[in-house]
């Protein structure tokens, strides 16, 4: 019994890391950076706006990790999707641009997924390769040029617009997290994702179509990266091959800190949101502290290391 309760405490602790970490960092910056305007509504809103694409990517990654797979290519997918969308929007109406942006994301996800699910290649290696492949394609698509996005409706919906005075990027964050959470926790598909990552053999003998689940999680991951690409293109009013390039570490860290297991079977979409906001706060705070970019990277790396170590404390017993 004591073993059971200590296990339960361990679980609580794991889930709590992200809440405590969030609060601790928030309070730390609130005090030390009060004079620099960390607590102003403008700054706090900015943090949410800036993390919106990363949060959407994190939601997708929760599905891939929970099914026992990983996606390293989502950063490259972001760039290819954003560029495809921007190119289409130059000559065609908005719905086509959006459809192409999202379709490219899901398509690349499906490409990853087929290699992983049906050719049974390890997702780490597949997506390591496609990360490079699509980073290259993003560069060659427009000869490293940035493509402006002039469509005001698009930049409104996916960037600077507001609905009932709520910024659209906040709305996208809420929708992405809510839909992700609903699918993850309250549908049969979500249950099958968790079972597949937890024990693929058990899932399979229980009639779950394990390869199909693997394909779908990679498509979800790609689709979320595609949406993140649209959000970047909307906010920056342009698409460039560098979009999403630097998100890999932040998003993986956000998801792990948020309580999702690296080897599958366990996770949280809400936790990923908090993890992502935590990373956003960290970025913001370190910039307000006037640290050099190199020092920011070092401090961020160290803090992520501590946070990840804490949230994995119980699972590597």
């Amino acid at each position, binding site marked *: 019994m004591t073993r*059971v309760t200590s*296990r*339960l405490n361990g*679980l609580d602790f794991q889930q709590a890391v992200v809440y405590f970490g969030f609060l601790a960092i928030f309070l730390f910056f609130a005090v030390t950076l009060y004079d620099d305007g960390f607590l102003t509504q403008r700054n706090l809103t900015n943090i949410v706006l800036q993390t919106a694409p990363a949060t959407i990517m994190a939601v997708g990654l929760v599905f891939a990790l929970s099914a026992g797979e990983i996606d390293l290519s989502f950063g490259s997918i972001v760039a290819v999707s954003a560029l495809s969308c921007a190119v289409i929007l130059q000559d065609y109406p908005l719905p086509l641009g959006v459809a192409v942006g999202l379709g490219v994301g899901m398509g690349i996800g499906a490409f990853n997924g087929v290699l992983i699910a049906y050719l049974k290649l390890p997702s780490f290696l597949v997506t390591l390769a496609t990360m490079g492949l699509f980073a290259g394609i993003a560069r060659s698509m427009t000869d490293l040029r940035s493509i402006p996005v002039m469509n005001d409706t698009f930049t409104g919906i996916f960037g600077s617009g507001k609905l009932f005075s709520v910024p659209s990027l906040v709305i996208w964050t809420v929708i992405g997290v809510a839909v992700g959470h*609903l699918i993850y*926790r*309250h*549908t*049969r598909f*979500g*249950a*099958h994702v*968790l*079972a597949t990552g*937890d*024990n693929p*053999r*058990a*899932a*399979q*003998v*229980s*009639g*779950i179509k394990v390869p199909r689940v693997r394909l779908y999680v990679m498509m979800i991951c790609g689709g979320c990266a595609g949406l993140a690409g649209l959000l970047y293109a909307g906010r920056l009013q342009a698409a460039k091959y560098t979009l999403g390039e630097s998100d890999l570490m932040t998003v993986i860290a956000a998801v792990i800190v948020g309580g999702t*297991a690296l080897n599958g*079977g*366990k996770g949280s979409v809400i936790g990923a949101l908090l993890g992502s906001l935590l990373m956003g706060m960290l970025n913001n705070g370190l910039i307000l502290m006037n640290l050099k970019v190199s020092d920011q990277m070092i401090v961020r790396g160290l803090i992520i290391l501590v946070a990840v170590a804490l949230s994995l404390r119980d699972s590597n017993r």
Partner: protein
Amino acid sequence: MTAEQNVLSLTNIHKAFGGVVAIQDFSLDLKAGEVVALVGDNGAGKSTLIKIVSGVYTPTSGSIELDGEEASFSDASSARSNGIEVVYQDLALADQQPVFMNMFLGRELTKPPFGLLDKDRMRRESQELVDELDVRIPSASSTISQLSGGQRQGIAIARATHWASKLILLDEPTAALGVAETARVEDLIENLKKKNLAILIISHSLDQVFRLSDRICVLRRGQQIGIRETAKTDKNKIVSMITGVA
């Protein structure tokens, strides 16, 4: 259905993995309400045979009939939809999920109008089931990894009994259990028999085999040595059939 009809009929089943012959020319008929024990040393092919019946493996040759009709299960789920449930030796449970999700793994209940999971009902029905079978666990919401080996086996058996309508295959269901837990599982198997299910059980405990079974089928290195009526044989005879030493 006549009382005499076989629930399961295996005829001349043969299974090879590459060059390794795991099962050679195996035949067995199983009737409703009958318990047949499958015995043999490690590596004799018992688990392989169970996996052939449950659709995990396809036999190299031979026929499987269910209720007198030729059946060929392409995978585990088609066997399940035909009322066959298996308790695997290496437990097929998802360790990080709660008991109730395991109980309904692959057959999760949903509720209208959106088809979302009906967790309350799954929790409630799981609780009723484990209570009925007297599997003592903290609650249906407990995570499997928090449970003991005996409790896990209890969950696996409860799941099989909940879903089986014709045939239950048990691969060493009490190997990991203590004395009291074993007795409870044996009671459970007696109950299944009364429910008129056909039961094929693998066990290394001859005491158990003699307590539970109507017939005993002996395998040695993939070969079917013979089938005996439990009431008309004794342990020494079965042991010599298993070992091949007269």
